[in-house]
């Protein structure tokens, strides 16, 4: 287990403009689910995941968002 990421910033907004956690996840997942899920839905799911994970450590956020979004998008396909 490697937890060496900076702590979350208390009071940070749930979705920052240009939030790298959202942008990175959207970029990867849009490509991965191309043709199966509409890009707009990918963006919405990722943003929802980012909001639901608010309060988690910032450094861990990209991984947490992407993993959770993958589970939720998987449900849409099924």
């Amino acid at each position, binding site marked *: *287990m*490697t*937890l*060496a*990421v*900076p*702590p*979350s910033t208390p009071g940070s907004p749930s979705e920052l403009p240009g939030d790298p956690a959202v942008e990175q996840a959207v970029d990867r997942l849009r490509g991965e689910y191309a043709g199966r899920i509409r890009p707009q839905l990918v963006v919405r799911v990722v943003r929802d995941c980012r909001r*639901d*994970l608010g*309060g*988690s*450590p910032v450094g*861990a956020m990209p991984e*947490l968002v992407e*993993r*959770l979004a993958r*589970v*939720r998008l998987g449900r849409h396909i099924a």
Partner: protein
Amino acid sequence: MGYVDVSAVRHTLSDGRVLLDDVNFRVGEGARAALVGENGAGKTTLLRIIAGDLVPEAGSIARTGGLGVMRQFIGSVRDDTTVQRLLVDLSPPAVRAAWDAVEAAELALMETDDEPAQMAYADALAQWGDAGGYDVEVTWDTVTVAALGVPYDRCKYRSLSTLSGGEQKRLALEALLRGPDQVLLLDEPDNYLDVPGKRWLEERLLETRKTVLFISHDRELLARVADRVITVEGGTAWVHGGGFASYHEARSSRHERMAELRRRWDEEHDRLVELVRTLQQQAKNSPAMASKYSAMQTRLAKFEAAGPPPDRPEEQKVAMRLRGGRTGVRAVMAEQLELTGLMQPFDAELWFGDRVGVLGANGAGKSHFLRLLAGRDVAHTGSWRLGARVVPGFFAQTHAHPEWQERTPVDLLWHGEPGRPGVDRGRAMAALRRYGLTDQADQPFRTLSGGQQARFQILLLELGGATLLLLDEPTDNLDVLSAEALEEALAAFEGTVLAVTHDRWFARSFDRFLVFGADGRVYESAEPVFDEARVARAR
């Protein structure tokens, strides 16, 4: 800053014996208190009570400032505990709990990668952050670099069993001294540390502003670091408010005072008993004396109910009688001696009555040199011989006698060995009594404590009639009182003494020193030399 307050603590052993009773002391903010006492007196038990591992039968412990505990076993961990686990275990409870929650969430995620498991993992990470976990990891990195010379990420999964005892101790001490806990309980922190390591520990304990309560048998460490000494003896504890330098005098004075108070109580008791007897006789003949007799009976009953003051603690019964005997003037001669692969050839000459300390780097061949002189099979070149009437007696480190493990002290004494005639049970028991080993007479050797095994080995030297004592770290497991008894016995010994030691206090009692250097050079020194580095070997 923090403190520990121990109040009226009582602890009873499983066999019903009261080990500690009415223990009261306070270790105030920033104090460096040493906890001393003979082997088995209850020091570690008391530390475990303060740490919360044991619940006292009576009394209470109050403390503030967060408690960091280094247990005695650190230094001898041989299981698969990792560096990471040790560092977690030494962390404050909130960090430990957060870490365990993250681990549990990770395991759950490996089993089922669904949304609840992911949310639980994210929650555990958030709690880890809230508990200061990320800052703690930065500290752990500093700790591993300081103790092991490698970053945390490169050694966190390393098993402690791959580290030396000294490295394990150093790692734990760095973690506790740099950690947030303001009160540290250290059970023999100097064990397994070489002399430079002990000096490092002394400096760190002197500069820390934390409150420290530590157990140690190292008199040099006690003298340099402790600003008060708490002694566990006679089933209770008392505090000497000064350092170790004035401790012996304070202890003697206390014992004399206790003996005097007890003597006065006994005298007063005898006087009252006699008075009651006299008045009883008089009351038979004179009704007027009956009321006096009754009053005196009441007074005696009250006096006895209040009980006597505690008697002075029984002194540890260690009376070592290393006699020795006259030998040739030259006791040991070595010419161009080299223990194969360990050192450069060297000459040495020891004279009858010499007290020579053997010092130097770990792995430089000091113990092998002693074993060679003891007549053991050690590969070497060059020549050596013992002088006329020189009979070597060898004290090995306590783990060096696998053949004794299942045998009892009485059995070992009864059978004897070449050069040491066997003795009957009566004589064996008398000898064991002088070494404070009566209760262990019929126990297998392996069940004896390190200190008891060491004392038994010294007894064998006494019975063997040695005139040249070859001692390999004899004070390593001895409590302070036993170490002093050994020093007294060596002072009275008529013969030659050669001792390997890392005990700086003990080393000061020697006349000169043979130093085994890390570069393979063996040289003589009039002063003790403790700076030789460890011998580098390919691993």
